[in-house]
């Protein structure tokens, strides 16, 4: 029985938020880095299993029907194993690996069947990912399925010429999901799994304005919206996301709000929208850091910090703007932040003196 869990339970009981007998605390919640380790090992295992299929059952891989049948079979077996014996570490890891292998075979089969039409393959893959997301109640598998849904969904959206709107759309989605995560807490792991997938997918679109290295395909898709208009629409969407996020958190965490808070929020939202026209990654990663702090999710906070630093490196090599423009953007944003901090501290000191 966990000491920390008991202490937590007692604290909640004293606050009147829980009652009744103490739960069977069971095993500690698996830390995120153990899940990452399992995920990496599972993928490597899946690659070897795929190698086995490719070498030993090459007729399966070469035929459309064979790939699809074998893929569906493997995935089905994986789902059955998860549902029946998912608590066993070895079975869970084995099921994860064969599910991955099965999904790759299905993808190969779909590509052959649909004549490598990326949009159609992506749509079918999205349906597959959605089904697996709901069928398998295991965090790692659910996260992977969500990632498949997000990636293929992005390709589908891109096929309609809306690739340039992906970062703003993704940021709005992950903001909404993370801030309402607790409403889905009765379905353990659903919201976090999809939240992490959305976050990583959105960051992927920021870093390449495409997803998972398929920019060569999306580059051939005509833009539905004229680039400048798309830039301003994305900026407006990000600004609105920041404003709504700020309003939600102000209502949640500040018992007494003043008009000053609303004014500051409006200024920040408009500034975020303007900054995002030249450096959307700065706004999106900063938003991620704020959200992670708001929900007390430290791994997500780490992702935000690392991605912000990585974005600065990426920004250096981005060809859309000159280094002079990028330097000006960073100088303005940095100076504004330092000035804002100085002003806030002065105002804070003054109100302390007055009180």
């Amino acid at each position: 029985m966990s000491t920390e869990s008991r202490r937590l339970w007692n604290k909640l009981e004293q606050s009147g938020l829980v009652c009744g007998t103490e739960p069977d605390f069971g095993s500690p919640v698996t830390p995120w880095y153990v899940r990452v380790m399992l995920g990496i090992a599972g993928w490597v295992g899946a690659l070897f299993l795929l190698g086995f299929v490719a070498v030993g059952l090459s007729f399966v891989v070469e035929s459309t029907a064979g790939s699809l049948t074998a893929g569906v079979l493997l995935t089905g077996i994986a789902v059955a194993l998860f549902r029946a014996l998912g608590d066993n570490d070895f079975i869970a890891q084995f099921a994860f690996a064969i599910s991955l292998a099965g999904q790759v075979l299905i993808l190969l089969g779909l590509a052959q069947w649909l004549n490598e039409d990326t949009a159609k393959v992506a749509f079918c893959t999205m349906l597959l990912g959605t089904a697996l997301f709901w069928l398998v109640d295991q965090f790692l598998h659910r996260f992977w399925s969500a990632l498949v849904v997000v990636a293929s969904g992005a390709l589908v959206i891109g096929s309609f010429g809306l690739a340039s709107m992906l970062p703003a759309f993704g940021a709005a989605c992950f903001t909404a999901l993370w801030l309402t995560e607790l409403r889905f807490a009765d379905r353990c792991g659903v919201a976090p799994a999809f939240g992490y997938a959305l976050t990583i997918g959105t960051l992927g679109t920021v870093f390449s304005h495409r997803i998972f290295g398929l920019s060569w395909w999306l580059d051939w898709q005509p833009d539905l919206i004229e680039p400048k208009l798309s830039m301003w629409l994305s900026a407006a969407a990000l600004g609105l996301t920041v404003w709504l996020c700020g309003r939600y958190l102000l209502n949640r965490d500040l018992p007494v709000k003043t008009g000053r808070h609303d004014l500051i929020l409006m200024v920040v939202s408009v500034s975020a929208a303007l900054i995002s026209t030249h450096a959307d990654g700065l706004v999106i990663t900063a938003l991620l850091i704020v959200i992670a702090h708001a929900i007390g999710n430290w791994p997500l906070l780490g992702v935000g910090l690392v991605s912000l630093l990585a974005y600065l490196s990426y920004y250096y090599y981005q060809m859309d703007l000159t280094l002079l423009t990028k330097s000006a953007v960073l100088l303005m944003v940095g100076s504004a932040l330092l000035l804002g901090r100085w002003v806030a501290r002065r105002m804070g000191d003054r109100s302390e003196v007055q009180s």
Partner: protein
Amino acid sequence: MIATRNQLLRWAAEQRISLEDLPAAMRVVGVQPNGNDWRRLFDAMALWLGSLFVSVSVIFFFAYNWSDLGRLSKFALVELPLLVSAGVAIWKGPHTDAGRAALLVATLLVGALLALIGQTYQTGADPWQLFALWAALILPWVVIARMPALWILWLGLINLSLTLYYTTFGGLFGVLFSGNEIAWVLLVVNLSALVVWHYFSSTATTQRPGRWALRLLATACGVLITTLMMYGILDGQDLLPATVVWIALMWAAHEVYRRRQPDLFVLAGCVLSAVFVLTATLSRLLLDTVVESAGALLLVGLTIIALSAAGAWWLRSVAAELDP
């Protein structure tokens, strides 16, 4: 904090806490921030991000290499902010947040200044010399600041200068073919840094500030020794010394991070390293003897699954021991 958060979510899924009471529960145990927490966050973000962006903007500016700007103006544009930030660091003191942020700006601007000197006077210096000199010049500030992030930046410069040195002098094909030598050197440097860091820090808990830096160093060492082992197993390069060092480091990691300063993160890295090394060994033994054996691939795949599952089971049992 994340463990507390995940525990509450698990209880909500088990309906031990109602969905209506869950937000209040998060507030009571301190997972959700209050007004003071938000003020601290925005203060820190404004200070550190503002400082970082301003100093990086200077670097970007000089990378643009604006030919219309005179030599004197260029040097003034980097030296003045450098002097100002150093002055702020002295005025505020190196142990205040503002002082440390100013030192961060100053250390980054030293790099910009060195790049400008190289750009202006065409000294013919190699890139590795720039980073090595940068690291040497900022060392006193890094020591004074006692800030994990600055130490990591400093070590990053050392690693980069060593890598660039070997890229320059490592032979015709650069990094790939002199990969082993670079990896050994980087392993010695980062391992020494990790040992020294442990020596100078007091007994640390997982939540202690700076723990992330120790984990980052441990991860770097783990990646390097695992890479050396993979080279040794698959290519036959330095297999014996790599094996000896790998076993020694795994034993040391177990002693330190299992018994003295428990840290599941590092132990998880050790498990992953063991999975990779044992898998590479098995692959070499099986796939070398029977070419294109489907059965061998299946066996290796199942072994990876079994090893990782066993590793996860062990890690969970260690976690349960640490939190009885």
